């Protein structure tokens, strides 16, 4: 398996349909950078998508706290941009602020508490809330790692 040093996605959860239903910003970002991976950063298709995406990103940067842009998906989109931008630190900083707004830093502790409680009751089934916390923890760790680089 490849080196995944900043894992921000779950390939089982963040599927095409799931991402598209949750956030057009994240969806478009993945599609654009997927085109870049496939055809190169100088390809016309990537440049076209990236230009359109930049406007959306500006809206997010200028108005990050609106409910329309909020959410873990916005943070994931910022992470993708940050990984390919020369001034990625700026976007990571914004991602950190959004993550704090969503209480993502508490997600790991909440997750551990929930897992411990579940195991103490000998329950095997992972709850939906636990899965949400796991995803939040994953994104938080990804933001944190990137911020430390």
């Amino acid at each position, binding site marked *: *398996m*490849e*080196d*995944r*040093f*900043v*894992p*921000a*996605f*779950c*390939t089982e959860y963040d*599927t*095409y*349909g*799931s*991402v*598209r*239903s*949750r*956030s*057009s910003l994240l*969806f*478009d970002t*993945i*599609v*654009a*950078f*997927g*085109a870049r*991976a*496939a055809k190169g950063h100088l390809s016309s*298709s990537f440049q*076209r*998508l990236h230009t*359109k995406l930049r406007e959306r990103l500006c809206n997010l940067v200028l108005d990050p706290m609106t*409910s*329309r842009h*909020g*959410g*873990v998906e916005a943070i994931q989109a910022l*992470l*993708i941009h940050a*990984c390919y931008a020369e001034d990625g630190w700026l976007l990571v900083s914004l991602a950190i602020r959004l993550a704090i707004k*969503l*209480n993502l830093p*508490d997600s790991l502790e909440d997750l551990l508490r929930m897992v411990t409680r579940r195991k103490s009751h000998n329950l095997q089934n992972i709850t939906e809330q636990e899965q*949400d916390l796991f995803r*939040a923890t*994953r994104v938080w760790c*990804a933001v944190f790692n990137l911020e430390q680089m």
Partner: protein
Amino acid sequence: MLQQSRKKDINTHPIDNLVVSQLPPSRSTDVLARSANPASPPCTASALSDVWSERNAFIGVGVRHNQGQYSTSHNFRLSIWRTEDFVAQGIVSEQEALNSFSEFFHGCVSISGS
């Protein structure tokens, strides 16, 4: 907290006033076809979500059945207001988007995760 944030999001949208004519043509056709069937539920938001999840067109992953109930209708509500993506705008085709999406998880390994 995440749930609260999302609920706050959806509560700002007047989804309950949605009418079929506001939907993109392909989806409104589906909805109309379904509404013509007496056995189908009325064209409420829940009914629309049912159509979409069955057809997998909008790929309403947020719309899940839980013992016959729509347990996460708020996710569906969110999805309606987020249709302005590249595919919906016709900037890329569905197939191109699928290919790029797949390529992202194969080619951008450092951030894609597992």
